[in-house]
């Protein structure tokens, strides 16, 4: 079969298609890993580091809403994705900084600890890509 160059993306395509579908997969992975991690932490040894584990659960929730926002698309999905990507960006910067500055307050890791170093710093890069993607596909 002769190879055709890949299709280009139409301007009015949904935010959940093209690169958006790659983001959907990556956000989905983090939604699953962050919330599964929180579930295990909270059900097995919650008292050890309640703040860190609640933060894990919160991070999981943020990734879930971002995934849902990208998936449903449209004006509403865009707003959901925009809100959760912004919270995600603030979260990774604040928690990342605090976990280095005040290690005692974070005895156990969350997805966002040390700027997501346990996850190859993907959690640090992801909100920037997400927000760039939403900005690039802003309605006009």
């Amino acid at each position, binding site marked *: *079969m002769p*190879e*055709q*160059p*890949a*299709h*280009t*993306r139409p301007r009015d395509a949904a935010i959940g*298609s*093209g*690169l958006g*579908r*790659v983001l*959907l*997969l*990556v956000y989905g*992975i983090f939604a*699953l*890993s962050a919330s*599964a*991690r929180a579930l*295990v*932490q909270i059900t*097995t040894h919650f008292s050890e580091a309640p703040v860190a584990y609640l933060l*894990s659960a919160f991070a999981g929730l943020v990734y879930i809403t971002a995934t849902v926002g990208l998936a449903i698309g449209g004006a509403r999905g865009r707003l959901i994705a925009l809100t959760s990507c912004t919270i995600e960006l603030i979260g990774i910067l604040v928690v990342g900084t605090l976990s280095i500055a005040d290690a005692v307050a974070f005895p*156990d*890791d*969350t*997805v966002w600890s040390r700027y997501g170093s*346990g996850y190859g710093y993907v959690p640090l890069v992801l909100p920037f890509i997400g927000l760039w993607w939403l900005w690039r596909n802003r309605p006009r």
Partner: protein
Amino acid sequence: MNGPLSTATIAVALALGVWYLIRTALDRRPTNTDLWAMLGLGALVTVLVIVAIVGLVTGDRPSDTMTFVGYLLTTVAFAPVAVYLARLEPTRWGTLILGVAALVLPVLVLRLQQIAEGAASIAGVTGA
């Protein structure tokens, strides 16, 4: 966890991942061969997971069985989900979906090995 089988899975996944990334850079949509290759990797992963489940039933259980089973389910679902999404996206980004999945799978297999060895200290650092 079966050592040689894990190593083979990781090697195949890394090779496929690099291939998909090159194809993405060349702006190629996923071909049927690309999709079948991912399903082949999925079959290899399924064998690995079945071997792990047999080990779970007959042999020693890792100290963190719940996490281990969670990882097993995630790992076995990975390739089919990637193929499903890549088929929805007949552009270079579909190829990138396969690439991301192929490069995350080795991480999942490594984590499975860590948990199987009951390395509580490592699990404590990198989490569930």
